């Protein structure tokens, strides 16, 4: 094992692989931070090019882009309120309000350093207990998956403004209903297409995400043009930025919890960073002593939790891919393709037959995080400058980039029209003061829920009992139900106590 580690390290710490990681991270950061250009797109465009390269350079490059692009999402989320990937969707919730208060540097610093810590923790997990984690991933049957989906769904209640939780669930149901459109892969039936062939592919979640966030935000940004002082006040200086590191360290409990959530959710194929940030945010809020301050951008942990979790998930997502050959999401699926074209069989024997390759991946992942953090210190000032470019230049360019990004995902104009359609939906929801995040969650969770429910029922001969009797599944469901019931009761109890206290004083 140790000579494999050394071999891996020896082949990563060479000039070319290091340059590849650096280029990958830098490019990934740029792409990830620009709304409209997603990490999936970056990898989709890059993978075919890596086919012609040596795997020892291709792999570090891909790892660099993967880390950079997913991590870069936080910049768009905080500065523009447009997340670059679903992975940073809940970073918007507090990151943007914090930046809008003039504390953009603080928000960015918190996000960057917690990303780094989350990524490092998951990198350590990757290197030390990957085979063990792979076993955990394999123990997840459809029952556990379905319960997890229910649990994530229940998180919506924790993410919404007081008194409007049901509205958020309605938004989620819109997402679920939209997810039904198209061909049902398992049964081969076409559903809800109203007879249109182009709808048979269903709605891709990325154009939906970009549309839902970008169009309402960019339209709203139009109001700011010509008014002095409404732009984000940028107070960037390196000292403030680096000073946030000590602030991050004051919230160790949140960091550890979020990283743990990120790793556990990350190792499950098909779930990944897109959901972990949401779960981590809602759990941080539930555990917090001041849940009412979430969404206002006051607390550091509300920005840190989703970022620590999504970066932790990245390392997690590599585990099933490298140890079992099972892709977790679109990005890892494409990386698997790259492996195959280089003549490497991803599968349970990858560790045995191509141990060096696995270690190159692990070590590159680690190095990529280190580079990522370093490059951020140069990159953030640039983005801050880019933000202060007049809005009448920024808005059209961002719209164009969204169009390019949506098209490049699948080479289809249909996705670009979806971007517009979801944008209008998002605008209507914004007018109705309903959050858009649950729509995305519904779109992502819908197909997953249906698939796992169907499998659970089919494997269990139409019985519902395994959902409750299987230990992991039962626990998750219990937590989900408790988390829906307990917080309102607790709030009621607290207000009752406060009232009775007040009466006593009076």
């Amino acid at each position, binding site marked *: 094992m140790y000579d494999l580690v050394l071999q891996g390290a020896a082949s990563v710490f060479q000039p070319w692989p290091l340059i590849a990681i650096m280029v990958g991270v830098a490019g990934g950061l740029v792409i990830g931070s620009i709304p409209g250009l997603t990490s999936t797109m970056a990898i989709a*465009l890059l993978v075919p*090019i890596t086919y012609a390269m040596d795997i020892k350079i291709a792999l570090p490059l891909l790892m660099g882009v993967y880390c950079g692009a997913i991590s870069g999402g936080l910049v768009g989320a905080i500065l523009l309120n447009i997340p670059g990937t679903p992975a940073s969707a809940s970073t918007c919730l507090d990151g943007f309000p914090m930046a809008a208060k003039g504390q953009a540097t603080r928000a960015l610093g918190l996000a960057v350093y917690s990303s780094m810590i989350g990524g490092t923790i998951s990198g350590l997990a990757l290197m030390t207990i990957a085979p063990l984690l792979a076993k955990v991933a394999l123990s997840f049957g459809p029952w556990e998956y379905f319960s997890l989906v229910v649990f994530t769904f229940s998180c919506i209640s924790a993410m919404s403004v007081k*008194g409007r939780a*049901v*509205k958020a*669930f*309605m938004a989620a*149901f*819109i997402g*679920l*209903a939209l997810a*039904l459109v198209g061909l*049902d892969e*398992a*049964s*081969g*039936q076409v*559903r*809800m297409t*109203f007879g249109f062939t182009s709808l048979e592919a269903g709605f891709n979640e990325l154009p939906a995400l970009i549309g839902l966030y970008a*169009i309402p935000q*960019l*339209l*709203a940004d*139009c*109001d700011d*043009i*010509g008014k002095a002082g409404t732009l984000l006040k940028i107070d960037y200086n390196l000292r403030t930025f680096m000073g946030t590191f000590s602030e991050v360290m004051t919230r160790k409990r949140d960091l550890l919890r979020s990283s743990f959530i990120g790793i556990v959710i990350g190792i499950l194929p098909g779930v990944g960073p897109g959901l972990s940030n949401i779960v981590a945010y809602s759990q941080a809020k539930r555990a917090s002593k001041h849940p009412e301050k979430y969404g206002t951008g006051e607390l550091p942990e509300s920005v840190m939790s989703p970022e620590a979790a999504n970066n932790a998930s990245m390392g997690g997502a590599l585990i099933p891919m490298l140890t079992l050959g099972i892709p977790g999401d679109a990005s890892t699926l494409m990386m698997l393709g790259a492996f195959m074209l280089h003549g490497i069989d991803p599968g349970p024997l990858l560790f045995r037959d191509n141990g060096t390759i696995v270690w190159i991946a692990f070590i590159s992942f680690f190095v990529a995080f280190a580079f990522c953090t370093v490059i951020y210190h140069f990159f953030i000032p640039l983005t801050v400058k880019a933000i202060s470019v007049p809005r*009448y*230049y920024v*808005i*059209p*360019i961002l*719209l*164009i*980039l969204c*169009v*390019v990004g949506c*098209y*490049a995902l699948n*080479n289809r*104009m249909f996705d*670009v*029209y979806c971007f*517009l359609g979801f944008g209008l939906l998002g605008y*209507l*929801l*914004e*007018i*109705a*003061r*309903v959050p858009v995040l649950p729509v995305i969650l519904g779109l992502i969770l*819908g197909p997953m*829920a*249906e698939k796992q*429910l*169907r499998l659970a*029922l*089919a494997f269990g001969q*139409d019985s519902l009992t395994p959902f409750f009797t299987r230990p992991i599944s039962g626990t998750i469901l219990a937590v989900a139900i408790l988390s829906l019931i307990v917080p309102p009761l607790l709030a009621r109890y607290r207000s009752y106590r406060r009232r009775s206290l007040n009466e006593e004083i009076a």
Partner: protein
Amino acid sequence: MKTNDLLFSAFYIVVLLIAGTQLSKLSDTNSAMVSSKLFPTLVIGAGLAVGVIETLRTLIAKTPDGAPSFSMVWSKAFAARRMMLLGVFVVYLFTITLVGFLVATSVFCFVAIILLTPKPRPSTFLGAAIVTAGTIGVIYELLVVYLQAFLP
């Protein structure tokens, strides 16, 4: 703000009802144990239930203090500048397939910058032209030349 909430509820229920009409078109696949109709029925049924309950609740509940008024929200949402941008953008999307991506994008970029600039001056046109050329150049160079990607 009640009006807005009720409008949203109405919109929501209509969307789900339209989706519901498609349910009847699904057949139970004869070779499957779990049909492809189960989950859609669950989603739309539960969704409608939630919608109806929330609508009733909105009708009964008092309007919370501090919520923005109906007319204020709508006049802001349909402000001239926002609608103008949206209009230009929609036109742009549908001309891409007609005249090609590069031409449509250059025109859109140029026009949108000028329309959005508060007080257009001759220098605005120059700025717009430079920004347009730069954007198109970067996109083309990066995507087509280096990444061998396809443009719409």
